[in-house]
Structures are given as structure tokens and as C-alpha cells.
């Protein structure tokens, strides 16, 4: 087992030579060397295994529920019974709860953030390695609760746990809320760690405005995680108290107020949407710069828009309750909701401007960022429909909303996550993947996603309510197309999994820097040594990539330090 002795000074590392060129993966052996590791990269890997398992599970429920809906289009085959309705309600609930709490929220910060954040800072590790390990165990414990839910009668409340339904159903609500409660701690600990690390462990020469934009995004995300997650924890504890101890808080039969629950719940869960999307935006900024091989356009606008989104994100929770609350509250929440659209739009424009006069490579990670821009634009524009009061009254709780938030939470976040995974894959594992298979999978995912959700926008506008196990005949065609789309999407995702496993087993050895990026993780070997850097990396403008020269013999880029110093001097006039 390896221990970081002095994490506070870990940022200024003289590097410690590893004998025989070992890396963090083969540095030490045995199950305990993983389960008790304090190495951020190993913790990131362990997160990766578990979070991807959760993704597989939650994704399977999605395919299962789409299949049930497809069968409903042929009622002779699958007659509607109370049992089949229960099954559907369980599927959509477990799909949402598992993917929100165990995949979308942790995916980018816990996997890629853990892996890359200290490397980008040239640091040995995060500020609090033990807390980092604890956060993984919180995740495992929370996952344990969800596993218990699966085996003990399931859950049928929807991932939102709306009262008083959630206090009256006989499914495993108590276990699920405890699970989400514990998972929240995993999220809080990661956020705390990242904030401390970014404050304390930036290397000399890297001020706030020389940080890669991924770190700005992770910083903004961490602030939300630390400030908002405790509210969810309190809400879930209150719900638990009401269910188990029959204290009247939300249930009108006990003298409570069910709308209070919605306020509490969305006070966390709307900022949580930004926990999902902000780190994804950070990835896109990195990909755009590297694959356009030029300085990003509007660095400070992108950085500040992350902070603006994080702050405004706290003030819009009421837009989930237009059909419940007073007209005055609606007006205020609608106005603030529209104001969040602006920083999001600014980001998209800056990414586009970065492509202008760039040298654009269509490597797989870049394809994902292009898909991201397409789907995020759709998600953002349909958000304009929903932010508008009179339109939301009609669209609220229809499949229009389902398609909108899937465009953002899946379309955007998932494509950014996959793009980031492909981008940093060579760094994480020291192996390349098959580019052709990766592109075919990208194509299937892109087509599948658009097919699945475009028709749901139409169905929702036509009046198809969400969370319906059954539907009127006029909606059958939309559900059929959507299900076919979800199958294409699933095939694409399995192809990604196949490609990754194939890469691990038989992938070509990756060079140190296959893409020519200049953020500090590319200044160390692939995969990095146990303590990240053998010698202190050269800190310069994060997107000054012109000191890297392509070397055909290794199919990667080689750093030219003399030119880097010269460019750095020019940069500072």
C-alpha cells in the first residue's frame, strides 16, 4: 500500500524515480493494494468499474421499459394487467434513480475528475487522498442500498420520490432514500476534495486563469455538490422520518404539505442538473481546443459562464412546479430560468468560434463534441419552450419534458463523457482503441439517440403524458419509433464497451501524447507513474499546443521545450 505522506506539498514534486518504468496500475499488486489505495488514479479506476456497472444496469431498465411500451402497441400480445403496470412503473423508477444517483452525477467528476484533475495540476494527488477513498466507499454503500431495493420489492415512486405517494406505497422507499442519502456523501466528499485541491495544489505559474477549463467546470460543479447535496440529505431524512416514524411533514393526512417536498427536492435536484452538465461542458472545452489545435476562444467567458450557471442554478428550482405554485412565484422562476440560457449559449458560441480558423481533426473524441453541440443546442432550445410559462403548462409532465432532459442529461452529458473517456483513455490505460469501431459506435449512438427522442418531443406536444405504462392508439407510432431508436442506441453503446475491452486486451501501446494537447496530463507518460510525474512538468498556457511536434514513428506528439519557452515569452510579451 502506498501513502501520500504530505498531500499539501504534493503539488511541488521533485518526482520520484520508479524502478523499471512501472506505472500506477502495476506499481503494487493484490486486491488490498487497490481496496486501500490512496492513489487518485486507482480510485478513479475503481469508480469507473462501478459507475459503468450502474450505467449498464440503469440502461438495461431503459431498454426494458421501451420494450414494454413497444409491446403495448400490440395489445393482443401483451394485455394490460396490474402486474404489467407495476413492472413498467418499477422499470422507469429504477432506470431514473440508478442512472441519476449512480451514473450521471458521479460519472464525470468521480471517474475523469479523479483521474485527471491532479494530473492537470501537476500534483501527486488530490488534497485529501483518504477522503477520496472514503467517497468511493460511500458510493459502494449507497450502491448496496440500491441493490437491496432491487432484491426487496423494488421501487415505484419515480426517481423524484414525490409525496404523499412515496409515503404510501409499499415498495422499498426507505432503503432507496437511505441509498441516495449515502451516495450524497460520496458526492460531497469528492466536491470538497476538488475545491481544496484546486485552491492548494496549483503549481507555480498556474494562476486561476491559466487553469484548463475542465478544472473551472469541476470547481463550479464541486461548489454545487457541497452546497446543494446537504439539502437533499435533509429532505430524504425528513421523508424517511415520515415513512418510518409517521411524523407529519409532507403528507396532508398527517398534517404535512406535499408541495413542500417538491420545493426541498428541486432545491437540490435542479442544481444537480448542473452537477451533471457542467463537467461535461468542461470536457468539451478541452476537446475543442485540442482537436482544433488552437487556443480556445473566449477563455474567461467560458470560465465565468460556468460560475454563473452554478450560481443561477440555485435560483430556478421553482420551474419544476409551474402547475402547482402561485402565479407570482411562477413569474420570478420563469425569468431567472431564462437568464440561465444566456451563459449556456455563450459557451456554445465560444466553442464554435474556437473551430473558426482551427485545424480540425475528426478523431472520435471530436465527433462526440460535435454531437454534444447538436444535442445540447436541442436540449437548450427545448428548454426555452419549457421555461416559458404558457408553453410549460401544456408540456409539463409529458414526453416533451422527457425528451428535453434526456437531450441534456443523456444526449449532452453522455456524449461528453464518452468523448472524454476516449480522449483520456490512452492516458489512463496506456493503450489505444480501434478508431474505426469507435466511429461506427459514435454513428449508431448519434442516430439512435436522435431517433429515440425526437419523436418523444412530438408525442409530448400532442399530449402524451409521461410515466404512462399504456397509451391511447394515436400515440402508438411515436412509441414504436422511439423503441427502435433506443435499440440502435443500445447497440452503439455495447460497441463502445466492446472496443474498450478489446483495447485493454489487445490495444496498441499509446504514446505519451497522442492528440497534441498541452494540459499537464500530457506531460507525463501513458499510463502515468504512481506519483504522476517523474520530473516537474513545464507549466505554460494550457492551450498553447504549438510546442508539440507530431512524430510519425510513435503516432504521437513530442514536446519541444525550447520552443515552449520561447512561445511562453511571446505570450507574456
Amino acid at each position, binding site marked *: 500500500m502506498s501513502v501520500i505522506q504530505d498531500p499539501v506539498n504534493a503539488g511541488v514534486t521533485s518526482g520520484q524515480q520508479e524502478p523499471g518504468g512501472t506505472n500506477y496500475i502495476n506499481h503494487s499488486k493484490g486486491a488490498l493494494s487497490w481496496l486501500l489505495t490512496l492513489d487518485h488514479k486507482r480510485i478513479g479506476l475503481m469508480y469507473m468499474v462501478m459507475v459503468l456497472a450502474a450505467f449498464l444496469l440503469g440502461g438495461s431498465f431503459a431498454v426494458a421499459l421501451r420494450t414494454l411500451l413497444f409491446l403495448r402497441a400490440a395489445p393482443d400480445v401483451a394485455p394490460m394487467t*396490474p402486474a404489467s403496470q407495476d413492472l413498467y*412503473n418499477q422499470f422507469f423508477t429504477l432506470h431514473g434513480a440508478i442512472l441519476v444517483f449512480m451514473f450521471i452525477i458521479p460519472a464525470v467528476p468521480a471517474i475523469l475528475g479523479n483521474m485527471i484533475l491532479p494530473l492537470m495540476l501537476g500534483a501527486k494527488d488530490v488534497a485529501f487522498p483518504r477522503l477520496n477513498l472514503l467517497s468511493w466507499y460511500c458510493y459502494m454503500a449507497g450502491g448496496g442500498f440500491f441493490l437491496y431495493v432491487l432484491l426487496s420489492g423494488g421501487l*415505484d415512486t419515480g426517481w423524484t420520490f*414525490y409525496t404523499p405517494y412515496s409515503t404510501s406505497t409499499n415498495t422499498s422507499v426507505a432503503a432507496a432514500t437511505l441509498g441516495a442519502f449515502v451516495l450524497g456523501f460520496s458526492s460531497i466528499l469528492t466536491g470538497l476534495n476538488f475545491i481544496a485541491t484546486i485552491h492548494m495544489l496549483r503549481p507555480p505559474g498556474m494562476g486561476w486563469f491559466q487553469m484548463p477549463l475542465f478544472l473551472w467546470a469541476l470547481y463550479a460543479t464541486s461548489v454545487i455538490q457541497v452546497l446543494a447535496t446537504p439539502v437533499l440529505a435533509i429532505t430524504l431524512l425528513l421523508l424517511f422520518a415520515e415513512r418510518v416514524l409517521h411524523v407529519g411533514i409532507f403528507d396532508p393526512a398527517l398534517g404535512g404539505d406535499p408541495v413542500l417536498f417538491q420545493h426541498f427536492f428541486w432545491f437540490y435536484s435542479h442544481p444537480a442538473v448542473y452537477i451533471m452538465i457542467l463537467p461535461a461542458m468542461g470536457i468539451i472545452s478541452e476537446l475543442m481546443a485540442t482537436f482544433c489545435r488552437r487556443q480556445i476562444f473566449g477563455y474567461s467567458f467560458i470560465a465565468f459562464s460556468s460560475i454563473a450557471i452554478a450560481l443561477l442554478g440555485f435560483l430556478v428550482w421553482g420551474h419544476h412546479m409551474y402547475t402547482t405554485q402561485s402565479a407570482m412565484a411562477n413569474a420570478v422562476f420563469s425569468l431567472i430560468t431564462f*437568464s440561465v440560457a444566456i451563459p449556456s*449559449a455563450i459557451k456554445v458560441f465560444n466553442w464554435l468560434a474556437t473551430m473558426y480558423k482551427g*485545424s480540425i481533426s475528426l478523431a472520435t473524441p471530436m465527433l462526440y463534441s*460535435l454531437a454534444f*453541440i447538436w444535442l445540447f443546442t436541442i436540449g437548450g432550445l427545448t428548454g426555452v419552450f419549457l421555461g416559458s410559462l404558457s408553453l410549460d403548462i401544456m408540456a409539463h409532465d409529458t414526453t416533451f419534458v422527457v425528451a428535453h432532459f434526456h437531450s441534456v442529461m443523456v444526449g449532452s452529458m453522455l456524449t461528453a463523457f464518452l468523448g472524454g473517456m476516449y480522449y483520456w483513455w490512452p492516458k489512463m490505460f496506456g493503450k489505444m482503441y480501434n478508431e474505426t469501431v469507435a466511429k461506427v459506435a459514435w454513428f449508431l449512438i448519434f442516430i439512435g439517440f436522435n431517433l429515440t427522442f425526437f419523436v418523444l418531443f412530438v408525442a409530448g*406536444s400532442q399530449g402524451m403524458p409521461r410515466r404512462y405504462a399504456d397509451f391511447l392508439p394515436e400515440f402508438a407510432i411515436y412509441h414504436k419509433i422511439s423503441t427502435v431508436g433506443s435499440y440502435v442506441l443500445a447497440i452503439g453503446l455495447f460497441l463502445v464497451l466492446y472496443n474498450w475491452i478489446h483495447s485493454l486486451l489487445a490495444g496498441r501501446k499509446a504514446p505519451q501524447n497522442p492528440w497534441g494537447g498541452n494540459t499537464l496530463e500530457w506531460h507525463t507518460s501513458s499510463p502515468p507513474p504512481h506519483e504522476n510525474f517523474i520530473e516537474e512538468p513545464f507549466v505554460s498556457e494550457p492551450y498553447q499546443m504549438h510546442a508539440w511536434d507530431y512524430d510519425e514513428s510513435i503516432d504521437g506528439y513530442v514536446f519541444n521545450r525550447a520552443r515552449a519557452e520561447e512561445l511562453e515569452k511571446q505570450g507574456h510579451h
Partner: protein
Amino acid sequence: MLAILAQADKTFFLPPARSTVAGLHDGLYNFVLWMSVIWLVLIAGLMVYFVIKYRRKSPNDKPVGPTHSTAIELGWTLPPLILVMVIFVWGFRGFLQMNQAPNGAYQVIVSASKWNWAFTYGRGEKDSVLHVPVDTPISLVLTSSDVIHSFYVPEFRIKRDVVPGRYNKTWFQATEIGEYNLFCAEYCGQQHSQMITKVVVESRDDFLAYLEERGKWWEGKSPVEVGQTVWNDNGCKQCHSVEDADGTGPKWNDVFGAERKFADGTTRIADEDYIRDSILNPGKNVVQGFDNVMPTSQGQIKDPEITGVIEYLKSISKNFDGQLLEPFPVTVPAEDGGTPGAQE
């Protein structure tokens, strides 16, 4: 014919507009739709154009492009800002009209329960289908007896949550005679997707005739008929089959007179009192194997209706061999040569 007319102005995205506020919604919807299409085409078009024009020629390209411009940043912030503010005001004004019922609107009480709608009119008339006169503002007071539901009629472009423990309000004015779907839009458990009924929009005269008939709807019907109608109209049939199959609730046939076994192990013979209890206080005796999910019908069902349900249950039970409550025989033996009994 009416059905064809009702379909006439359905578009690719929107169902027919059938209320006075629907136009407000559709105008803004189409504006935002076309604005979105333009932005999407612009952004995607630029993206594709740049990918082609600035494609990588060599891995050693050293492109230099602009890195910042405050003027450009402010320039492209302004149009979306103006657009969303216009949309905000437009949407808010539409919402106020959708929210505020005009004075003198005719009021209907909407009671939602798992998984049934009930509508109560001015003189206590009740139905499971909402009947309203055309071209008349209707104000709705929404209540729920269990969990949160949501009142949603796409053709009218209105939706309002139905929250237990409080009265929510909404209103609409239908513009064309016809039948429209009324959905529950807030997830409410097992049969959420079956919680669909109709809004029947009819002429003023038809509506008055309907109220007249609903007011004393059980008059002239035998108690068994009354019970069967209650079963059909009040939502009992959602959970209680009369065809020998348990659903969410126990089946109804052969219940009367049988021994009922409860979750707590006790038993009771299903007599008249038991049936009445089960309707008004359903949590008291929960039959083994079933969940306590049935809402009470207290205040929503009248005594003649309860009597009807009891007689209906008797009529479909093999465990009952007594005499059903039926109209007095029409022909009565004459006495002392006096006038015979009731003959119509």
C-alpha cells in the same frame, strides 16, 4: 362528422386547439419552434462549414485564430438575451390569462383519487365524465383524496396539479362541441396510465338536459342497476373485476355472504354493514393479499348509491340466496273489491 371536424386543425406538433386560450399557447409555440429551428440550423450549419473549411491538413498545423473579443462576446449575447426576454413576457402574459378565470364562470368540483375522476356540479349532480356547455367559461376547483394527480386536457392547453389537502383552481372555455381526452399527468401509482376520462362539450340545452338526468339519475332504476352503474361510473371497476379475476382490489363476484380474511388474520362475513364499511372506511378491513390503497368515498357517494352497490353485490354472489330489493310487484291482489294497487 364532429370527429372529422375536430381533427381538422391538428398539426404535426400540436393537437387541435379547442379552448379560448389555446391560441395564446399556439402562437408562442410556433414562434419558439421557428426560432429554435433557425438557431439550430445556424449553429449546426456553421459547425459543418468549419469542419469542412478548417479540416486538418497536417498533424503539425499551427493554426492561429482570434482568442478573445469582448465586442463579439457582447454582440452574440445580446440577440439571445432580447429573444428570451420577449418570450418570457409573451409566456407570462399568456399564463395570466390561462390562470385567471373570468367573473361569473360556472364552477365544477373535480375530485381525483387513485385512479378515478369524479365531477360534481352545482346541485350535487355527479359523474365520472366531465360535461360542460360550449362557449361558457368553466372554473374548476380541484381536490384529491389521496396522492397528487394532475388535470390535463391537451386540446384546451390546460394542466393543473390536484394536490391533497388543498384546493387548486384552473379554468377553460371550450370553443367547439365534441369529446376530448382528459388525462392524469402526475404519476400516481399503478394505474396512472388508465386514469383517463372524457370531457364532453355540448350545447347549452344538451347540458341542461344532462344535469336534469344526472340530478336524480337513480330514479326509475332498480337498486341492482344503480349499483352496477356506480361500479362503472365511480371508478370501482378500475380495481374490482366482476368476472372472477382479482385486480388491484379483490373481485366483486361471490363476495357477498362469503367469509373475508383480513391482513391482520381476523375474519368477517361480508354482509351489508361490511360493504358499507368498505366503501366509506376502506382501510378498516384490508383483505389478505391486497394493499391498503383504496381511497374513501366519504362525502362522494349517496345512500341510494350505497344501497345499490350492496344489492348489486348480492345479485352477483352465489353466496346470497335471499330476496333482492326490487320494485314492488305491479299487480296486487284486489281487496274487498276496492281499487287495485299502483298501476303506473
